[in-house]
């Protein structure tokens, strides 16, 4: 599956590991159940650790583990199921998570901008998806009305700044 990050297709260093399999060296993604089980192998693991978090579980349960996590993968089982948008915002805005937040599942190019605005910074595309189109989709809008953790200026910010610009031009 192609992985898009920072607007480009990148190699995915993470390996998803089944619950009953030993952890290989390097970057791994484990299930939420395994993360919460207190498996000593996780504490001993020396590479980057990620978790695949289902969209039906309360993300506040990850909080104690966040310092140890390099990645949280949030799921879109169907594109219509938008719970992970809220989960991503909570991870970024309330719990201050700075690692990778990856969108997995039925990730469509027409949603990718919403995902980026909600705090996702990596997108696992389905087979055959057009990575260039994803990049274009991320740049399609220049105007945003609501503040989110992506830090883009909102219309309100731009309007507040507008008189100042006029003033500068006058000087």
């Amino acid at each position: 599956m192609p992985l898009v990050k920072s607007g480009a297709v990148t190699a995915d260093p993470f390996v998803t590991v089944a619950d009953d399999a030993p952890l290989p060296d390097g970057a791994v993604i484990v299930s939420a159940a395994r993360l919460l089980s207190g498996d000593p192998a996780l504490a001993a693991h020396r590479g980057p650790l990620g978790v695949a978090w289902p969209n039906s579980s309360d993300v506040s349960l990850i909080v104690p583990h966040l310092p140890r996590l390099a990645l949280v993968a949030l799921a879109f089982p169907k594109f219509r199921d938008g719970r992970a948008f809220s989960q991503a915002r909570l991870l970024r805005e309330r719990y201050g998570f700075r690692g990778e937040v990856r969108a997995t599942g039925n990730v469509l190019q027409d949603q990718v901008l919403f995902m980026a605005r909600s705090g996702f910074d990596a997108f696992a595309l389905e087979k055959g998806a057009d990575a260039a189109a994803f990049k274009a989709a991320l740049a399609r809008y220049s105007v945003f009305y609501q503040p989110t953790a992506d830090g883009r200026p909102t219309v309100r910010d731009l309007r507040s700044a507008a008189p100042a610009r006029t003033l500068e031009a006058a000087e």
Partner: protein
Amino acid sequence: MYVHDEFDRAFLAERVEDFRGQVARRLSGALNEEEFKPLRLMNGVYLQLHAYMLRVCIPYGTLSATQLRALAAVARKYDRGYGHFTTRQNIQFNWIKLAELPDAMADLAKVGIHGIQTSGNCIRNTTTDPWAGAAPDEIEDPRLYAEIIRQWSTLHPEFTFLPRKFKIAITAATHDRAAIKVHDIGLRLHRRDGETGFEVIVGGGLGRSPFIGKTIRDFLPKQHLLSYLEAVLRTYNLEGRRDNIYKARIKIQVHEIGLEEFTRRVEAEWEAIREGTLRLDEEAIDQVRAHFATPAFDALEDGPAALAAALQDPGFALWHANVVAPHKAPGHAIVTLSLKPIGGPPGDATADQMDAIAELAELYAYGEVRVAHEQNLTFPHVRQKDLPELWRRLDAIGVATPNVGLVSDIISCPGLDYCSLANTRSIPIAQAISERFADGARAAEIGRLHLNISGCINACGHHHIGHIGILGVDKKDEEFFQIVLGGKGNFKARLGELIGPAIPESEIVDAVERIVDTYLELRTSPSETFIAAVERLGLDPFKERAYASR
């Protein structure tokens, strides 16, 4: 009027191009219909029985004359010369070709209107009182807050794939003309201890499981409006049901977990975000207020001589008594334009009518037009001295039927004539009932009576809150109609009660007439309205007569 600025215009232009690309991908086959569906829906494009339908958003029901002309032009150029105003202050075009949709949208975007979020599982057009900014009984113009909500909810990244659609309505008056108790969120602006804030009502809605909304907060200071909405929406987005489309509205969530628990969760979420970036300080509110150009009303006196003289004309007097309401500014009035001509499809207006109405708005109404949820139009600001001339000119284009609020002012869904969900037709039933009560004197004698018709259980015609509600049901491929009585959509909202078995199409108009006759016979005096009589008498006398011939 809210005046769009460079940012609003840039956004709309980008949106049109985005949709143009999506249509191109659909036409080329890169997107199949299933993949295209959520994208077109989010731009207000439905696939109906016969064609694609475009629903255009009229934010909080306010249109400039220029915008109304643009709607007329779209009706003429891309459709069959008419449009249909809906119960949520929007307009629908029923015959637009897919390949031409982006051009139609580009034409509309030039005047600041669009179809964004008129469909799909997102936050829909925030509706309000059609008399906003004009009514004497409001504490503030609610459109200011409707616009703040519009901006916040436009392509909201978190709330665009909700469990189900989400509708917000707001009012600031002592009379509810926006049906706020049958919305996912209803907001009532009021004052407490000198401060302005909102009563927040959640979980109302019609459809197959109708509920009256419940108050989760009596008073929310206005600066917290958006953070509170975000808390409600997040609670719904994360925990609302997604396993069954018919149980996915917030009303079911509130009903299943209970008001107390739902409120607890919302308040807990709100506590975490209330002082964050969504806080609306005075500066933020003023920034939006500055975009509203309020008309500078002429200094006039109430009851000018020209009006007094014209009232000698019985035709004018009848219209005046029916459609003209008091205005907050002296010498002015609010005028409703009935889109319910006797025998016509409720809520339809032709392109020629729209153009003429736009011209009249400029001449007599400070250039402003509103859409009301009863599927009529309103001129919110008319000089009283201009009323006689306005009446003549409205009458000439067929929008001066003096039946506003009367039995022939029927709310009706499009029904099986257009809609792919409908079980029965509803427009022809509305037309037949309207013809039965065509006699204006008789309709006036009957007085205030809201008759609402839905062609299926989805209840787009709001039959649950009609004083008389009619619901079309399919029985072995034949169209039957249930009757409910006693519904109301105002602050004292209640759902109508079913009076008995469904009635075949051939008998429905007679049954309605017998119910109305029963009221006329049993009312204590002409001042006892139909709804008051139903509340006093209960269903039995009406039920008995409705089925009397069978």
